[in-house]
């Protein structure tokens, strides 16, 4: 095991100032190192048998990896290899996760962050928390959405694939954060390893090393991580702490959302004598993102862009209809899609009455006099581009 030391020291050197990883995680990442070192002495298949000796440590390594995943280890950018070997080892019929993880370890790259990444990668493949990482990454790529939401959505993609078995989806996180976290995990693990025996102890100091309790701890940590996400998602959860009251809040929230769906569907049924929501309403919905006070500005902007694509194929009359709905008047002049969107955006922000009056004035007094407000001129140009003879006041 002495061969592992230089690498661990190497890990130590790569420490960054980010020391958020828990002691356990660092221990685990060091364990991975050790396992990797051991694995170098065994060919893959015998390694699997060799795992029997390392079973205990392998098991701990599992949790280490899961912890790393939980707290954002760096991801190795080559999931394909891991995936195949993983499957092969799974076919050996080992039902326990530790073997699978340990077996995946030999393929880790020799660089410490990569080790953390690779092991996290393979471990994460089966861990549900992996989905969180992937969600985070995709969320970062989207760069806009709430973290939990992206996380949840990504999770949903992968949930099916791995209930208990390892999923083959791997995440590649390129954020510097995660790299530094992985490095610090390795480093701190190295510092703790000398205190405890390399092979056997994977537990935190002062905690039971029983395999059952370790499994329990992993489970508890998973649960607490998900509770954290839920806390961010459910409004009003910040004040309450503790699983019980948070669950209460979550239950209340889900119930209220479901009731809202019922109520809104009833309302929609009452409004429409027949079920004809169609395209008009679809565009209306696109048109009116700026209207509700809860709307964020860029959201409406985005809606406009997508609406442009959607509507471009369809007739312009449909584009006009939303404005019509607000104006209570039909304008049949063909307007460029872009213009119409601009118009409706400005339209939403002003009072409809004044808009009607203005338009009336403008058409009566000819185009030059209509430059009182910029948005009016926009609309005028739009209208004038088209056959505005059809326009009637």
């Amino acid at each position, binding site marked *: 095991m002495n061969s592992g030391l230089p690498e661990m020291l190497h890990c130590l050197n790569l420490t960054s100032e980010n020391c958020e990883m828990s002691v356990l995680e660092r221990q685990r990442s060091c364990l991975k190192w050790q396992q990797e070192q051991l694995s170098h002495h065994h060919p893959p298949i015998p390694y699997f048998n060799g795992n029997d000796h390392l079973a205990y440590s392998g098991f701990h390594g599992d949790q280490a990896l899961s912890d790393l995943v939980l707290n954002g280890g760096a991801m190795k950018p080559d999931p394909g290899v891991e995936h195949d070997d993983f499957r092969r080892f799974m076919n050996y019929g080992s039902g326990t996760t530790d073997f699978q993880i340990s077996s995946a370890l030999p393929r880790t790259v020799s660089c410490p962050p990569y080790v953390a990444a690779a092991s996290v990668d393979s471990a994460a493949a089966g861990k*549900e928390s992996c*989905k969180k990482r992937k969600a985070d990454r*995709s969320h970062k790529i*989207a760069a*806009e*959405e709430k973290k*939990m939401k992206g*996380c*949840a*959505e990504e*999770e*949903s*993609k992968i*949930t*099916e694939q791995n209930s208990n078995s390892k999923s083959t989806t791997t995440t590649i996180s390129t954020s510097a954060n995660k790299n530094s976290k992985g490095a610090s995990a390795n480093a701190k693990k190295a510092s703790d390893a000398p205190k405890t025996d390399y092979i056997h102890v994977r537990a935190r100091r002062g905690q039971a090393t029983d395999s059952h309790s370790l499994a*329990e701890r992993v*489970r508890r940590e998973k649960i607490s991580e*998900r*509770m954290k*996400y*839920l806390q961010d*998602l*459910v409004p009003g959860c910040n004040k309450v702490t503790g699983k*019980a009251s948070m*669950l209460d809040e*979550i*239950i209340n*929230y*889900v*119930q209220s*959302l*479901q009731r*809202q*769906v*019922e109520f*809104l*569907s*009833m*309302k*929609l*049924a009452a*409004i*429409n004598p027949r*079920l004809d*929501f*169609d395209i008009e*309403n*679809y565009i*209306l*919905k696109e048109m*009116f*993102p700026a*209207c*509700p006070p809860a709307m*964020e500005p*860029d*959201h409406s902007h*985005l809606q406009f862009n*997508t609406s442009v694509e959607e509507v471009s194929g369809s007739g312009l009359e449909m584009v006009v209809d939303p404005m019509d*709905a607000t104006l209570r008047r039909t304008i049949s002049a063909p307007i460029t899609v872009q213009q119409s969107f601009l118009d409706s955006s400005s339209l939403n922000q002003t009072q409809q009455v004044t808009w009607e009056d203005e338009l009336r004035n403008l058409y009566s007094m000819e185009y030059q006099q209509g430059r009182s407000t910029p948005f009016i001129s926009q609309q005028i140009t739009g209208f004038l581009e088209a056959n505005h003879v059809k326009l009637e006041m």
Partner: protein
Amino acid sequence: MKARSSLKQEFLEKWRKGLQIGRNDSTILERKDAIKLSADVAIAATRNAATRWRRALLCDVVSKNPTNKHVVEQILGHKLKNTAATTRLTTACRRRILRRGQNYRRRKRNKRSRALRKLVPGGEEMDGVLLLQETLDYIVSLRAQVDVMRRLAAIT
């Protein structure tokens, strides 16, 4: 923002598709049920319809009323295969499978856990960790659904 608006748009489109199925609903309750059904199926069909609660929801919808099947198919865009995914295993059977994995943990499901399971579709058959995860995703989708419906109601 992009992902959120795309989720809502996807939901809206699928909802529309479901509503386009011709139904002769005269009473308001029937209309409301049709609207709600389409909305639920649409929100369950977003994002690959892969998670547990989505599948459970679709299975419940189909099993409750076989005529709903073509709504589901219309929204999903493909025929429902009669695989295990579509036919829910009985709760007892699933529980047995679940218990095998939980043999070492003798957890008693407290009241809250049970309540949450009742709320989330398919929650009876999930273990603790998965339940929270599914709840997370379910909440996200519900929020999108409510948001879109509210906007639509405000417009019309």
